[in-house]
């Protein structure tokens, strides 16, 4: 299973040991954890987040609903945060000319898997998690995103039950593009806030 979360074999060994105990005591059957993880990840893809961002770019009403109540808004486009054991609250924030948002989970690596796919290794790294709250401008520059000094940066730490997603700024010169073409421009980093689109 995906126990190698911190790149530490000691942790992996502990996870395997706990898994074996759970199976031995009949609390889970063999393979159940892997099956549950597969179910949870099924359909999770940054293409979902990209579709939401593109819709928000072309439809102001959808954008307003998305920022006010993201769970309800994404249900309207056939997506859901209910793939796990319980529906998770989704909070969507939008970048503007004046404000840039970036998402982190300083305590572990929480993130909306259904909309972004499995999280990248850097998102789970201690370096990103500890540094982006302290010096987001410096960290974003290391990602190649140099923000103008007058753009305010807001960092969102997923420390409890909500999951966050960023709607990037719509790039200039995309007026004639279809919603589908726009969605093709949106990257996972853009939806986390570590890249512009």
């Amino acid at each position, binding site marked *: 299973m995906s126990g190698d979360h911190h790149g530490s074999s000691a942790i992996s060994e502990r996870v395997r040991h706990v898994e074996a105990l759970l199976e031995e005591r009949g609390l889970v059957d063999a393979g159940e954890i892997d099956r549950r993880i597969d179910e949870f990840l099924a359909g999770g893809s940054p293409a979902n987040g990209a579709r939401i961002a593109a819709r928000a770019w072309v439809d102001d009403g959808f954008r307003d609903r998305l920022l006010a109540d993201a769970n309800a808004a994404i249900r309207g486009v056939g997506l859901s945060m209910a793939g796990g054991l319980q529906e998770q609250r989704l909070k969507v924030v939008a970048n503007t000319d004046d404000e840039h948002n970036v998402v982190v989970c300083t*305590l572990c690596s929480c993130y909306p898997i259904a909309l972004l796919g499995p999280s990248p290794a850097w998102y789970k790294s201690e370096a990103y998690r500890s540094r982006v*709250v302290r010096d987001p401008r410096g960290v974003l520059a290391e990602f190649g995103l140099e923000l103008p000094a007058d753009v*305010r940066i*807001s960092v969102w730490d997923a*420390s409890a*039950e909500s999951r966050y997603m960023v709607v990037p700024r719509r790039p200039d010169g995309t007026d004639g593009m279809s919603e589908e073409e726009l969605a093709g421009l949106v990257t996972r980093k853009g939806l986390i806030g570590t890249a512009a689109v």
Partner: protein
Amino acid sequence: MPDRFAPGDAVRTSTADPAWHTRLPRYARGAVGRVVELAGHHPLADDRARGRAGTTQAVYHVRFAAADLFGDGDHDVTVELWEDYLEPADQQGGTP
């Protein structure tokens, strides 16, 4: 029980350093921020991590100015915090 805080309220986070799992990140302890919005009601994570059922209480997005957390920085950091971690702060404290 009604929610104790509303958007715009100034709040101060706990300075406690519990021996158990908590979701109040260390960098946000003892700091003054402002409630952005309610983020639902959930059992307190500190209780659940200790095998207790956990009282369900309000969770808030609370915004802090980086300077109030770290002594410098021009950004802000929004943390999601259970009501248990928060006390009212006077309106002069903090500048989020």
